[in-house]
């Protein structure tokens, strides 16, 4: 155990190395491209080694090993505020995934951003982001977690708005930051409540005084009749919703695609969005406190249904998108919905396992789309692509693997993890399971749609814009440093699925047989196949000939399609309601301030001036000038008298001397 303790103590190295790299890169001049990239990759590599070392160390143990190392951050009065790092299977696996995927994404990024003049700044933000994410993962103190959480939000803002010259990018990064901030308010309230109730922010401590270790105490009455634990859980989940783009706060994720593709891959596929799910996993004891699988707490229900709805909702939108990255963005939303739903259904292990597998193949898909964009000279609209399998064979193969994994085709990772999720949800509630299954069907459909639009048929990019005359380029294969990462990731996308059981065991969850396992599995396979077939029918048989042909689905759905394309008008809805309301409040307060406050102030000033006038007249004129000056006059008069005595004549002083002696003598006689 002490070996783990040592490792726990060295946990802080993992985030600090990328942080150091980020610091150094921030000082580098813009021209030091090679050095910056090198630094970033090396730092990520080292921290990846450390993470893997910790991962393999925890792998060996059977009972869920947990090593905590706390240090005092600062002391106020008698209380010393402790921060700490934790090393348990959940963290180890997550850290390993983040560093490994991150490393390959960085490799791809060197290619993608090759000819961008702000190359060094980009990699600096990347390493900063990595540091923040790792810090979040390993922290044992919820406040430290929250700090890293905010840092991650900041990095996403910086990276999304990397090309801040583009107004859409600037707006997108602001939007992302604000919506996540709204979630963070809930998160912070949750922290405060936790601190208020338990008195400490450390999750686990060796002595067992950690917040999560004393969950039992938190069953007192909280808000809205829930137990304290549930209230905190709800608040924390609001934070997670903001960060993991769940239903009400998901609007920022599609717009976040404005950032460079490796950013989308890293942040909006593998790591950041997973942070919310990870946080819920980390705080899982809070969620299930006070309830059990049979009658779950309100928090669990809330998580479940929001997850399910988000999955379905975003899947529907993904179907009608034309931008290659937006499709993937919405698919991420729906997959996150799946994970959250799994957690809501009480399945910590399926949720986390799906998170891991999803991170790999979604990163793969995003990088693939990155390669496609580079290959087609920054073309993002699928309608202008097509037939890329001839031009970009490697990308095509990897992309295909990623698509199959995502769609849940059996041998691939996606199938196993999604299957687990559906199984857990099936136990929990049939409604959620139904929605999830339909979402799985849609996933299959829009992924195949994307595949055929992009890779099948012939290259539509050229003809559409002869007007510009530059479109005549043929797409070309990307250099090695872009396709190598997707190749590696595709390996994982294939192989990771088989480790599902071992992962459950690793996390320490006991292996109990769930009923209806065969039914659920069979149904999910069927649904996936149906989705793919429909995709092939609409898009595969005769791929689009020209960029501006109508989308086959469009004439099928008509109005619904445009509605889907407009993202169910959610943005417009927000625009209409919340934003207008706040501006209205703003003007109201301005008016109040103007009328009320200024008015009061002016009146007070007037009164004070009046009083001073009175004081001046009464006090100054009458008393001071009169009385005081008279006093001074008398003093000066007596002074004048005394000065006459001092008239400089020596003999005068002598006479006074004589007088003095005489008086003394007289006194002497009178006395004796």
């Amino acid at each position, binding site marked *: 155990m002490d070996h783990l303790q040592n490792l726990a103590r060295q946990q802080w190295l993992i985030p600090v190395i990328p942080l150091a790299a980020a610091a150094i890169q921030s000082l580098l001049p813009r021209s030091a491209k090679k050095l910056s990239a090198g630094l970033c990759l090396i730092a990520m590599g080292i921290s990846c080694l450390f993470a893997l070392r910790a991962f393999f160390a925890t792998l060996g143990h059977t009972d869920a090993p947990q090593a905590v190392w706390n240090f005092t951050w600062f002391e106020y009065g008698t209380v010393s505020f402790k921060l700490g790092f934790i090393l348990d299977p959940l963290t180890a696996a997550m850290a390993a995934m983040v560093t490994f995927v991150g490393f390959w994404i960085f490799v791809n990024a060197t290619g993608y951003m090759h000819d961008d003049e702000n190359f060094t700044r980009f990699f600096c933000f990347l390493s900063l982001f990595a540091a923040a994410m790792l810090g979040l993962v390993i922290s044992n103190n919820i406040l430290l977690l929250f700090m890293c959480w905010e840092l991650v939000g900041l990095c996403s803002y910086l990276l999304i708005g990397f090309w801040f010259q583009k107004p859409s990018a600037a707006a997108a990064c602001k939007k992302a930051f604000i919506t996540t901030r709204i979630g963070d308010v809930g998160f912070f309230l949750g922290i405060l409540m936790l601190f208020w109730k338990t008195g400490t922010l450390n999750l686990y401590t060796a002595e067992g005084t950690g917040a999560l270790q004393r969950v039992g105490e938190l069953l007192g009455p909280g808000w809205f009749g829930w137990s304290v634990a549930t209230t905190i859980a709800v608040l924390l989940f609001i934070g997670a919703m903001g960060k993991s783009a769940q239903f009400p706060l998901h609007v920022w994720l599609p717009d976040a695609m404005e950032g460079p593709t490796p950013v989308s891959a890293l942040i909006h596929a593998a790591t950041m969005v997973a942070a919310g799910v990870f946080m819920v996993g980390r705080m899982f004891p809070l969620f299930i406190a006070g309830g059990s699988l049979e009658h779950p707490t309100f928090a669990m229900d809330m998580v479940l249904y929001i997850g399910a709805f988000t999955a379905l909702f975003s899947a529907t939108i993904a179907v009608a998108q034309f931008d290659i990255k937006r499709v993937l963005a919405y698919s991420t939303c729906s997959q996150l919905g799946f994970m959250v739903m799994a957690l809501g259904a009480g399945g910590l292990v399926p949720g986390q396992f799906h998170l891991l597998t999803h991170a790999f193949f979604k990163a793969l898909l995003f990088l693939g789309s990155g390669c496609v964009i580079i290959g087609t000279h920054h073309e993002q609209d699928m309608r202008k692509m097509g037939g890329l399998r001839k031009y970009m064979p490697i990308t095509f193969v990897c992309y295909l693997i990623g698509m199959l994994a995502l769609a849940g085709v059996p041998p691939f990772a996606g199938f196993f993890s999604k299957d687990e999720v559906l199984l857990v949800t099936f136990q929990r509630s049939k409604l959620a399971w139904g929605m999830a299954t339909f979402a799985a069907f849609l996933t299959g459909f829009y992924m195949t749609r994307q595949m055929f639009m992009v890779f099948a048929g012939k290259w539509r990019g050229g003809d559409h814009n002869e007007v510009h005359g530059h479109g005549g380029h043929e797409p070309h294969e990307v250099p090695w440093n872009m396709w190598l990462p997707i190749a590696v990731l595709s390996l994982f996308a294939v192989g990771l699925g088989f480790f599902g059981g071992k992962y459950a065991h690793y996390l320490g969850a006991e292996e109990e047989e769930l009923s209806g396992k065969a039914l659920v599995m069979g149904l999910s396979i069927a649904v996936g196949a149906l989705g793919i077939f429909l995709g092939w029918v609409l898009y595969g048989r005769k791929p689009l000939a020209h960029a501006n042909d109508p989308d086959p689905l469009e004439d099928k759905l008509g109005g619904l399609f445009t509605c889907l394309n407009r993202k169910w008008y959610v943005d417009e809805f927000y625009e209409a309601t919340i934003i207008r309301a706040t501006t209205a409040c703003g003007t109201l307060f301005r008016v109040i301030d103007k009328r009320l406050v200024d008015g009061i102030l002016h009146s007070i000033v007037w009164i004070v001036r009046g009083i001073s006038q009175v004081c001046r007249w009464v006090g100054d004129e009458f008393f001071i000038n009169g009385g005081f000056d008279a006093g001074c006059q008398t003093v000066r008069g007596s002074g004048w008298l*005394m*000065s006459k*005595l*001092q*008239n*400089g*004549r*020596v*003999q005068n002083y*002598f*006479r006074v001397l*004589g007088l003095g002696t005489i008086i003394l003598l007289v006194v002497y006689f009178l006395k004796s």
Partner: protein
Amino acid sequence: MNIPLGHYLILAAILFAIGLAGALTRKNAIIVLMGIEVMFNSAILNLVAFWQYKYFAVPTAQLFAIFAIAVAAAESAVGLALVIAVYRHYKSVDVDEMKELKG
């Protein structure tokens, strides 16, 4: 020679008073100095009288007088030098005119 000490003391007192009168009334600075000189001598006379009448056994009693005479001489020397300096400034030794240090 059986004159009681009182006579000497009274003599000294009278001389002192005369000296003081001179110092106070006269206009001329030199006369003032002379008055002071007279006062000095009357004091020393007192000392010697006491030596003779009371402390005759102690030969060193006279030392008081000797030191007093020495100091008086030094004082008068400096006093006169000052008067000369003052005269140079005022072109007169009239005490009433020396009002420069008026308060």
